[in-house]
């Protein structure tokens, strides 16, 4: 039963208040027919016995109070899914997106509510399969595993898109040629950025294994709220019903949060920090927590959300709340970027919480954990020496500090930095780590198990590194 009303009483921002409604349910999908015949969509945000508050996905311009017809469709926002989605580009509401995609709409296998349902923690399987991204700074230090959600915290002007595209291109689980696909959700990014991704996907053949949902900067802002949910619904279908391993890249989460703030402001809600609604954490969690693996199902969803930190401020509510939900973060550093280091990965502040389960014997290599700890400690000491050198001058440093200083320089130049098309395997990354550590005296290797140290760096034959 479709119920049509012309009883709109108020339009304000992206919200429309419709009076004398009956039998309308919370979160129901709404269709609005403008006087000129144009159809807009929305959903019910709040409902009481006579009034329904409707959020318009495409904005309210051109709507009017007396002639716009409001139809309640008796269902929630849904996405039609099918394997035909692979290779296609959709808009924020799941329709083919011109000019990237001019083919007719897909024939859905079924319709799925885009809000999804929380995965029962009891049904989850712990992410433990190492994903090789080909970046030493990720694989060696902040290892990504299947089913993880690991965001990239970036800033305006930093090469996060290039990093993300390279990850999408190179990411593989070693020793398996399993079904792999990328789901890409663009929220409020520019045409150029979107075009970069699409062209990169097309030129490397990745497009055939990709589903793209695109809401560009000039598309309706409110549509951004459903874009990531559409993308994740597609990802869940492909992962859990079609046994595929899905990498979901979502960019830019900051635009998503701003859209959320716009609605909260229009509803005159009590604002939380920086005007974002108090439920921002819960809302973001409903997106990020859709990553994971499920016991007894083959597929998996790994998420790499990208967000630009306003003023590079990590304590801004968006990166802050994201960091509390995701399993770590990869932070891009402006300082390294200025030094022309690509990827400008701030390995100190970056973190992958799930790496411990994804590394070691049988996954990467037995020495990985110790090596990682030692590299981090050494780089940290090296950075301290660098600070000291600024104050005292490099010549005044103790011999040990000078060695650390040298280590830090080499580490950034050779370990972190790599080419845009350079795909290092994990052995190369680990061996490079050992090579760099040998710039330091052997007795400084305190984080490495003695047996392990003996295996990769035998005590005899390196006696000359004494004298700190």
């Amino acid at each position, binding site marked *: 039963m479709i119920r049509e009303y012309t009883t709109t009483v108020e339009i304000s921002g992206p919200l429309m208040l419709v009076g004398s409604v009956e039998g309308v*349910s*919370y979160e129901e999908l709404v269709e609005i027919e403008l006087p000129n015949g144009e159809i807009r969509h929305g959903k019910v*945000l*709040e*409902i*009481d*016995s006579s009034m329904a508050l409707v959020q318009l996905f495409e904005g309210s311009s051109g709507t009017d109070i007396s002639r716009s017809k409001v139809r309640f469709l008796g269902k*929630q926002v849904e996405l039609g899914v099918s394997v035909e989605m692979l290779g296609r580009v959709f808009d924020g509401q799941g329709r083919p997106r011109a000019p990237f995609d001019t083919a007719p709409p897909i024939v859905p296998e079924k319709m799925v509510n885009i*809000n*999804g*349902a*929380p*995965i*029962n*923690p*009891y*049904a*989850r399987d*712990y992410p433990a399969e190492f994903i090789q991204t080909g970046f030493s700074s990720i694989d060696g230090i902040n290892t990504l595993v299947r089913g993880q959600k690991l965001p990239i915290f970036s800033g305006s002007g930093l090469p996060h898109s290039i990093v993300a595209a390279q990850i999408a291109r190179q990411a593989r689980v070693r020793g398996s040629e399993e079904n792999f696909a990328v789901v890409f959700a663009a929220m409020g990014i520019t045409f150029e950025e979107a075009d970069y991704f699409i062209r990169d996907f097309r030129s490397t053949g990745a497009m055939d294994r990709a589903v793209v949902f695109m809401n560009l900067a000039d598309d309706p802002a409110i549509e951004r709220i459903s874009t990531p949910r559409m993308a994740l619904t597609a990802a869940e279908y492909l992962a*859990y019903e079609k046994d595929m391993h899905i990498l979901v890249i979502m960019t830019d989460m900051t635009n998503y949060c701003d859209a959320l703030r716009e609605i909260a402001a229009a509803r005159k*809600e*009590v*604002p*939380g*920090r920086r005007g974002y609604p*108090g*439920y921002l*954490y*819960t809302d973001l*969690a409903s997106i*990020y*927590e*859709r990553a*994971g693996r*499920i016991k007894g199902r083959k597929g998996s969803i790994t998420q790499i959300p990208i967000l630009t930190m306003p003023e590079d401020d*990590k*304590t*801004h*509510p968006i990166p*802050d*709340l994201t*960091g*509390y*939900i995701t*399993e770590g973060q990869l932070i891009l550093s402006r300082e390294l970027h200025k030094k022309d280091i690509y990827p400008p990965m701030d390995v*100190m*502040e970056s*973190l992958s919480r799930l790496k*411990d*389960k994804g590394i070691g014997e049988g996954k990467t290599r037995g020495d990985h954990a110790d090596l990682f700890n030692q590299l*981090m*400690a050494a780089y*940290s000491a090296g950075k301290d020496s660098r600070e*000291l050198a600024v*104050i*005292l001058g490099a010549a005044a440093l*103790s011999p040990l500090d000078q060695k650390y200083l040298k280590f830090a320089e080499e580490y950034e130049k050779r370990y972190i930095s790599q080419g845009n098309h350079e795909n290092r395997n994990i052995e190369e990354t680990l061996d490079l780590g050992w090579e760099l550590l040998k710039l330091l005296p052997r*007795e400084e290797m*305190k984080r490495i198990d003695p047996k392990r140290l003996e295996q990769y760096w035998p005590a005899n034959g390196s006696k000359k590194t004494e004298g*700190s």
Partner: protein
Amino acid sequence: MIKGTIDKIAGPLVVADGMKDARMYDLVYVSDYALIGEIIELKGARASIQVYEETGGLKPGDPVTATGEPLSVELGPGLLTAIYDGIQRSLDKIREEAGDWITRGITIRGLDHEKEWNFKPVATESMEVSGGEILGEVPETEVIVHKVMVPPGVKGEITWVVDEGMYNIDTVIAKVKETSGETRELCMYHNWPVRKPRPVAEKIAPEEPLLTGQRVIDAFFPLGKGGTACVPGPFGSGKTVIQHQLAKWADAEIVVYIGCGERGNEMTDVLQEFPELEDPKSGKPLILRTVLVANTSNMPVAAREASVYTGITIGEYFRDMGYSVALMADSTSRWAEAMREMSGRLEEMPGEEGYPAYLGTRIAEFYERAGNVKCIGGDRNGALTVVGAVSPAGGDLSDPVVQATLRVVKVFWSLDAKLAYSRHFPAIGWLDSYSLYTENLKEYYNRELGDEWVLMMKEAMALLQREANLQEIARLVGAESLSSEDQLILYTARSLREDFLHQNAFHDIDTYTSITKQKIMMEVIMHTNGEMEKALHAGVSPRELFTLPLREEINRMRYIHEDDISDISAIKEHVTMQINGLIEKEQTA
């Protein structure tokens, strides 16, 4: 039963009409899906209800039924090893019923009512009993004997007790003739409203430390059994790892772990790891003493608010049996945010940062449920220790939740982002953290470890504090230009940091250090400090001293197995030998 109808829906808040006789905090069923909710505001016949499940698809006019009972949990055999959501629905049962995703309107009772337990009566007929008295025992898991108690509030004479045997929890196992003359039939479980603290006979100040095997905690900032602690820190500073370490190694008999609005994968980690990890004391899997409450961040927000109460009520119940219970809540900030969200939807006047004005009161009430107590109904003591993680916005400790928590807790483990970045874990900053239990616990430590322990810790702490001051100077003039005494302070403080405070949670041996081993490790470091001081007086140059190979040996102490503790003591002699070698060389030169 009071029946009303939905009038308004806004997210997890539903307003119902026709609820005139309903009471505050009554449990209600909303719509034909029978979604569970709780009344949080009454205005005339209108009741505001926080709904513990998704409200999408509800309509005005849908029915609402109030049960007349407050939100309660079932307490009885079967709690241990369970994993519950925020309102005590067993997640494994939900999975059996609904599949891999949590759908709506699932009603599952907290305990298994079919399973039979071996009940062995302790109480006898014609015994005068009151609330808390032990009626009988059930071996719930291999390590824990569940004590079936008279529910608080019941008082009278036992007229009948069942014989030992296998019964399910619905079977009547005793009858009590109450003073009013009425006969109460008791079974192995009873219900208890989650928002009401369970009664105790008397509260006592904590006297024993909750040993955790974590060196920085046990040695410097100990937590008393029955005490409260909070761990605030920005993300990535290792709050969750600390909480997990405590849940694994704390010497409590029962552990209640509340995952409140946190990551799903973290709960999975606990679920997969605990059945495999062994308790260092009993040698049995840790899961046998654990109750998990998991309300992950994507599960309904209102149930998150309830989850901390569900968890602490279960904790109190085991405390009443006379056990030492440790409760970890990760993270209380999510609980506070859930409160804020509901408060916002109720259009209450906000306090600081949008949090409701009653935030501080709620937090204080929650932590006050911890304690070292004399239990009701018999001569036994129990303890409930509460450790809450706080996730302040932007890592800023002026956050209202942190401040409200610090006003009530006695131990503060301050997580330092700088330590975390240099991968010094646990990242508990030694300069800002504190424990107000050190005085209470002094007697225990003097008895167990000898008088020198407390003195040694004070000395070590003083060194660390002087290091912080010296470092600033060293940064300006270079460490080499400091006096040799000051250089030694820097040396020893570094050794304290790297060889004692730093602890690798993922190393088989280093993950847990007994207090005896901690003492010996500390002795080695302080002994080295003393010997070096002597050497400096004798004219040995700091550079020679600090490059002695003993450094490496001291660094390896942590990896020495608990059974080979004598190997650590032996290091002391090696140290003396090496340093004396230098002194002799200096004197002969």
